[in-house]
C-alpha cells in the first residue's frame, strides 16, 4: 500500500515539477490599486501602464535577487468602496507583500485602516496631505503634497511683489485640498486672498466667476483644478481680456493642457514635477538620468508622453524594489526598509523617508514652469 502511495506521490510531484519549469523561488507578489477607469482615470491609467512597465523591466533584468516580481492590479474606478474590496482581495486572496496605489486621496484614505490592520505596507500614489499626516506606520506615499506646490507659487508671487490674489478652485477633492492649502499658507507668505471662487468639475463656462474676479483688487489668479476646467478658464480669461497673471496647479502639468487651452495658455505659470522639463534640466540635476529614461521608455512602449502621474507609480515600484533588495520580502521588513530610504532619486523628487516623514519630499520636488510658444520653459 505504502509503495503505491509513494509512487503516486512521486509521479504527482514529477507532473507538478515538469508543469512549472520555472519553479525556483516563487515570484514576489505586489498588489496595485489604480483608478484605471472612471473620473480619475487620467491618474490611474498612466500609473498602471508605468507600474507594469517597470515590473517587466525589473523581471527582464533578472528580478530582485533572482526572484521575479508579480504585479496583481485591480481597478478601483475611483470608488472608495471598490478600493476597499480590491484591497481586501489583495491581502486575503492574493496574499501580496506590499501594495502600491490607490491613485486618489479618497481611495487611499478608505484602504488605510485595512492595511494598518493587516500590516501590509502601502505606497500610495495620491497627493492628499492627510495620507501621511499624521504618520501611519504602514502607509507611505510618492505623490508630492499639494502644500509644496502652493509654497512654490506663493514664493514666486512674493518675488513679483504680488500680495492680493483671487483663488479659483474646482469643487472636487483635488480642488478642495488646494484651496485648503492656499488659504492656510496665505498669511505666512503675506498674501491676501481677496476673493475665493469655485467651479464644478464639469462646468463649461467660467466667465461668471472671472467677471466677479475682475471687479476685485486681485493682482493675480491662482486656479486649482485638473483638465479640462483650467483650460476653459484660460480661454475665458483671454476672452474677458483680464490682464493679470494666471497661475495653475500641478494638476494640469501636461502637454494636454497646452493643447486644450491653445493660445490662451501662453504665459501661464505652474508648479510641476521635473518630468515635464526633463530635457531642460542642467546635467548636474541628480534626477535627470532617471527622468529621461522614464520618458523614453514610456514613449517607446505606449506611444504616449510619460507624465508625473505615471512617475508616482515608477517611484512606488522602485522604492519597493530597493526595500526588498535590502531587507527581503516579508511585509515587516519591507516597511522597515522603506522607512530607511535615503536620497532616492525618483521621478517625483529626491525621497528621504524617516520615522517622522512618510511623504519624503521637499519643496524642491517642484519647479515652476511657464508656457512659452506651446512648450515649457523653466522659471528662474
Amino acid at each position, binding site marked *: 500500500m505504502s509503495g503505491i502511495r509513494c509512487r503516486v506521490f512521486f509521479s504527482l510531484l514529477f507532473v507538478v515539477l515538469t508543469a512549472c519549469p520555472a519553479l525556483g523561488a516563487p515570484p514576489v507578489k505586489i498588489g496595485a490599486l489604480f483608478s484605471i477607469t472612471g473620473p480619475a482615470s487620467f491618474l490611474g491609467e498612466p500609473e498602471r501602464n508605468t507600474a507594469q512597465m517597470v515590473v517587466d523591466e525589473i523581471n527582464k533584468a533578472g528580478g530582485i535577487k533572482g526572484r521575479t516580481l508579480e504585479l496583481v492590479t485591480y481597478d478601483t474606478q475611483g470608488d472608495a468602496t471598490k478600493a476597499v474590496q480590491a484591497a481586501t482581495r489583495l491581502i486575503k486572496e492574493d496574499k501580496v507583500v506590499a501594495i502600491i496605489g490607490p491613485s486618489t486621496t479618497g481611495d487611499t484614505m478608505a484602504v488605510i485602516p485595512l492595511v494598518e490592520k493587516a500590516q501590509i505596507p502601502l505606497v500610495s500614489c495620491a497627493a492628499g496631505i492627510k495620507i501621511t499626516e499624521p504618520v501611519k506606520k504602514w502607509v507611505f506615499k510618492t505623490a508630492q503634497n499639494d502644500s509644496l506646490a502652493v509654497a512654490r507659487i506663493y514664493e514666486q508671487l512674493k518675488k513679483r511683489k504680488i500680495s492680493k490674489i483671487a483663488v479659483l478652485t474646482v469643487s472636487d477633492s483635488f480642488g478642495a485640498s488646494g484651496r485648503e492649502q492656499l488659504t492656510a499658507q496665505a498669511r505666512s507668505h503675506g498674501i491676501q486672498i481677496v476673493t475665493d*471662487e*469655485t467651479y*464644478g468639475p464639469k*462646468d463649461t*463656462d467660467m466667465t461668471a*466667476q472671472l467677471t*466677479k474676479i475682475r471687479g476685485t483688487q486681485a493682482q493675480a489668479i491662482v486656479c486649482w483644478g485638473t483638465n479640462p476646467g483650467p483650460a476653459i478658464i484660460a480661454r475665458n480669461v483671454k476672452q474677458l481680456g483680464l490682464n493679470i497673471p494666471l497661475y495653475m496647479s500641478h494638476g494640469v502639468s501636461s502637454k494636454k493642457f497646452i*493643447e486644450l487651452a491653445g493660445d*490662451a495658455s501662453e504665459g501661464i505659470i505652474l508648479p510641476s514635477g521635473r518630468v515635464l522639463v526633463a530635457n531642460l534640466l542642467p546635467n548636474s540635476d541628480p534626477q535627470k538620468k532617471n527622468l529621461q529614461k522614464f520618458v523614453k521608455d514610456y514613449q517607446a512602449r505606449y506611444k504616449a508622453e510619460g507624465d508625473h502621474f505615471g512617475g508616482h507609480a515608477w517611484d512606488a515600484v522602485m522604492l519597493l524594489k530597493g526595500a526588498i533588495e535590502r531587507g527581503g520580502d516579508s511585509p515587516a521588513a519591507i516597511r522597515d526598509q522603506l522607512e530607511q530610504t535615503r536620497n532616492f532619486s525618483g521621478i517625483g523628487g529626491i525621497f528621504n523617508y524617516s520615522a517622522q516623514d512618510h511623504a519624503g519630499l521637499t519643496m524642491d520636488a517642484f519647479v515652476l514652469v511657464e508656457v512659452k510658444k506651446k512648450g515649457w520653459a523653466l522659471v528662474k
Partner: protein
Amino acid sequence: METASQIVQYLLSGLSTGAIYALIGLGFAVIYNATGIINFAQGEFVMLGGMLTLFFLTDMNLPLVPAVMLAIFSSTAVGTAFERLAIRPLRNATPLSLVIITIGASILIRGQAMLLWGKDTHALPPFSGSDPLEIAGATILPQHLWIFAVTIVIIVASRLFFTYSIAGKAMRACAYNPRAAGLVGIDVRKMVLFSFVISSAIGSMAGIIVAPLTMTSYDVGILLGLKGFCAAIIGGMSSGLGTVIGGLLLGVLESLGAGLISASYKDAIAFVVLLVILFVRPEGVFKKTETERV
C-alpha cells in the same frame, strides 16, 4: 458702472450657455412630442456631434465644413439605428420601459465612444478665430455668435416645419393621438423614426458648435443632456419657443447665480428650478393648461 458691465457679462455668458441648453432641450421635446418618451440618450448625440467632428477633422484630415456635415450625418445615422434596433421592436412596451432602454442606449453609446476615442478631453478649433468682441463693456467670442445664429436658425426652421409642413403636422398629430393619426392614414412608425432623425441631428449640431468653447470628451453628454432636459421641462416639453426660453432662462439663472451669489450653487440653481416647476407647474411655465373633455 463697473457693476453694470458685470451684469451685462453675466447675461451674455448666460444667454450663450442657455442657447446650448435650448438646442439640446429641443431634441428632447421633438422625440417626446412624437412618441411620449423621454430620450435620455439625447446627451450622447451632443457628445457624438463633437467627437465625430474631431474624428473627421484630425484622424481623417478633412476640412471643417465636410467634417461637420459628416459628423451630423453619422450621428443622425446612429439615432436612426437606435430607433430601428431598440425602440421600434418594442413599440408595445410601456413608456417607462422605453425610457429605461434609452438610458441603456446612452450608457452603450458612451462606452463605445470611450473605447473608440479614449478618455481624453479634446478641443475643436473655433470656426472663426478667437479674438474677443466687445459689447457694452462685456466680451464674447465669435463662437458665441455661431451658437446664437445656429440656435435661431434651428428654432425658426423647426417652427416652420411643425406649423406648415405636412410631415410636421403629421408628427404633431401622432403626438396628440397616435391611434387617430394612424386612422387618418399617417404612418405613425415613420413619424417616430423621423423624430429620432430630427432630434439626433439637432443634438449633434449643438455638440458641434459648443465643442470649440467647452471642449469635448466621451462623457460630456451626461451633464449637458441633463441641463437640456431641464430646459425642456421648464418649457413644458414644447418643441417651439417654450423650450428655447426655458434654456435661456436656465443659462442666465446659472450665470447670475454663479456671479452674484456663489458658483457652488450653480448646478443647484438649475435643479431647484426644475423641482419647483415640476411641483408647481408640471405642464411647463409657458404652456396653456389643456382641458380634457370627458
